[in-house]
């Protein structure tokens, strides 16, 4: 009986939600330990599309990818930016550790050209990562084509789209929704993640990426972990503990010329928070 079950589970067509057999060809460490832990394979999916849905600029939509891009830019292949909405500012990119000599900027005039350039860049195999702003009305067929191109060229495609696209079906390997809350931490929601459970929410401090997850501060009152979930989850399941609030930012008095604001406040403790998800 057991043997028969084992045999059945060996079938390549059967994929078990719980196991972390890698559904992705490879991965690129994101540079955020909490995020790496949440993604199967431990990083961004290589040779596939990643979609980041967001509505605002300036909420960390680029900083989220910077540690990975910085590393990729020094590995020999190129990083293409296709149809960026504003100027990707070179001094800031250099400050994030990106090697500017590996950056290729493409400014197509029409959306069709942007999609074409995106596919060419993904398929060519010379770009380690392709970041693109293809517009919200990209269809699922076009995305499918791009996904295949990324597989063929072993490229990591990152598409930035509006959060209205969350409703649309998409063949991308990973879809994330980036939001800001009242705190300074970026909140990432996994809408779709090939090979892992979705509806997780992760909070990241984008200013201070950490490559290793830090232990939870012992003084934090840690409520007993809920035991109702059977445990092949790798992460500790906790409701979000109350974070020590940083000092409220002093508002600069206007008119100008007053003292600069104290930088940063105390180091933020990072949390990986799993919302309870439905499991059977």
């Amino acid at each position, binding site marked *: 009986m057991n043997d028969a079950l084992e045999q059945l589970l060996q079938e390549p067509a059967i994929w078990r939600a719980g196991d972390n057999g890698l559904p992705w060809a490879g991965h690129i460490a994101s540079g955020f330990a909490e995020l790496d832990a949440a993604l199967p394979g431990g990083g961004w999916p290589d040779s596939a599309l990643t979609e980041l849905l967001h509505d605002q600029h300036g909420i960390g939509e680029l900083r989220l990818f910077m540690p990975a891009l910085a590393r990729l830019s020094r590995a020999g292949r190129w990083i293409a930016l296709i149809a960026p909405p504003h100027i990707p500012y070179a001094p800031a990119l250099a400050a994030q550790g990106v090697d500017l000599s590996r950056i290729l900027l493409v*400014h197509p005039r029409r959306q069709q050209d942007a999609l074409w350039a995106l596919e060419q860049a993904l398929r060519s195999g010379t770009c380690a990562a392709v970041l693109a702003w293809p517009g919200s009305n990209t269809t699922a067929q076009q995305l499918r084509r791009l996904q295949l191109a990324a597989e063929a060229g072993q490229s990591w495609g990152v598409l930035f789209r509006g959060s209205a696209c969350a409703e649309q079906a998409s063949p991308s390997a990973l879809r994330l929704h980036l939001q800001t809350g009242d705190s300074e931490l970026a909140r990432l929601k996994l809408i779709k993640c090939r090979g892992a459970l979705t509806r997780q929410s992760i909070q990241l401090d984008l200013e201070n990426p950490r490559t290793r997850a830090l232990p939870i501060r012992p003084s934090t009152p840690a409520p007993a972990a809920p035991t109702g979930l059977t445990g092949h989850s790798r992460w500790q399941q906790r409701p979000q503990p109350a974070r020590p609030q940083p000092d409220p930012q002093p508002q600069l008095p206007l008119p100008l010329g007053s003292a600069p604001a104290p930088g940063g406040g105390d180091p933020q403790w990072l949390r990986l928070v799993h919302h309870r998800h439905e499991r059977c």
Partner: protein
Amino acid sequence: MLWLALHLPRFPLEARSRAQQAPGPCALVEAGRITHVNTVAAEAGIQAGLGLSAARSLAPDLQLLERHPASEAQALRQLADWALQFTSQVSLQPPDTLLLELGGSLRLFGGLDTLMTMLTQALDQLGYSHQQGTAPTPVAAWLLARHGDPEPVRDRSALPQRLAPLPCILLPLDTARQRALAGLGIRTLGDLMALPSKDLGRRLGRTPMQLLEQALGQRPDLRPQHQPARHYHGHLEFPAAAHSSKSILFALQRLLRELAGLLHGLEAGVQQLELELAHHRRNPTRLRPGLMRPSRSTKRWLMVCRERLERQALPAPVIAIDLRADTLLPLAPEALALLDAEVQETPDRWLELTERLKARLGGRTICGLGTRAEHRPEQAWQTLPPEQSPQQRANPHRPLWLLKQAEPLVVRQGQPCWNGPLVLCQGPERIETGWWDGHDISRDYYQARAANGALLWVYRDRRPPRGWYLHGFFG
């Protein structure tokens, strides 16, 4: 010495009609008579020497082209240019034969058989049907090729035996002499060789005997060496006007292959081509496809031309194409791959990608990124041609997104607003510079957090009217 003769029996016709991929019946006309026919027309029963009306009755859709001796000579010279990729010694035998000395090339190309396969394939791709002959003397090779005997003769001692069965009509003699030979009962070269040459010379003149001696290697045969052209100008006419980019590209690849042969021979490459598409009763369309680096790869050029053509709207069907390369740049020959095949691949593919993007989207839409030693934020960055190593000055206090144009902010009760009031959280950073070139600025920059959580880079102009502006996002 080993000479290869490439005899192109339909050369005058094919030089005119090879722009078409699958031609219909087609024939060349001189003085009201048909001189050359293609295979399709020959299958319909049309032969050289036929009158026009008779030919038309055999094949109603027959295409007739007027013969043009000057352009034929030019086409043969271009083919000789192309053949320089196989050997440096190429000699013309007008009107329709090329002689190539292959003795020095056998080792490089890996033997006669490999070389012959390459040559045959390459000629097919150019659209020329051919017969070949190989022999130690040029005249013998030429006679064998005209006879259609492809079996190579490697040894001089085997020449008399191999040449003996060839008919005398192959010799380039006028009709009177041919008739005289036939009257003497001499049908083959073997018959001619058997007779004493002195007496024959008295009857027929020196020419046939001299030719025979040259063929057998008993008399020196000095051939002028073909001098390659220093620029390329290929021209192809479409017998029927081309409506699709596919048929234009087909003709273009034939010209590009010809060009590539010349460039291989000269160890050169080109960076810029001029392509002219002629239309009926319209001004021609002129395109100038270019590459990032000189190249002689047909594949790369074809890819760039395809992207360029697809972007171009043509006003009318194309009746002829002209391809010009005026500046041939020196380019080192490619290393034959031993181990470095994979290492070389990536830069090539990279070039391919950028060239393809440039050809389709236009050259200015593709660029690299760098910084400049400049305090004004608008000028602290620059675009560069990709592949140039830029300056990289990091500044951690700058936003990842910079707006192309600073956006004025609404001020309510003395507070700048952008989707609600802004909270300034870092700053000011005063930038006051640029008085020397008239674009001077005097600003105080702040990091500001918007009500929706976005982190912005804003400034206040220090000059009246002291407005607030949004200049970037900390993306």
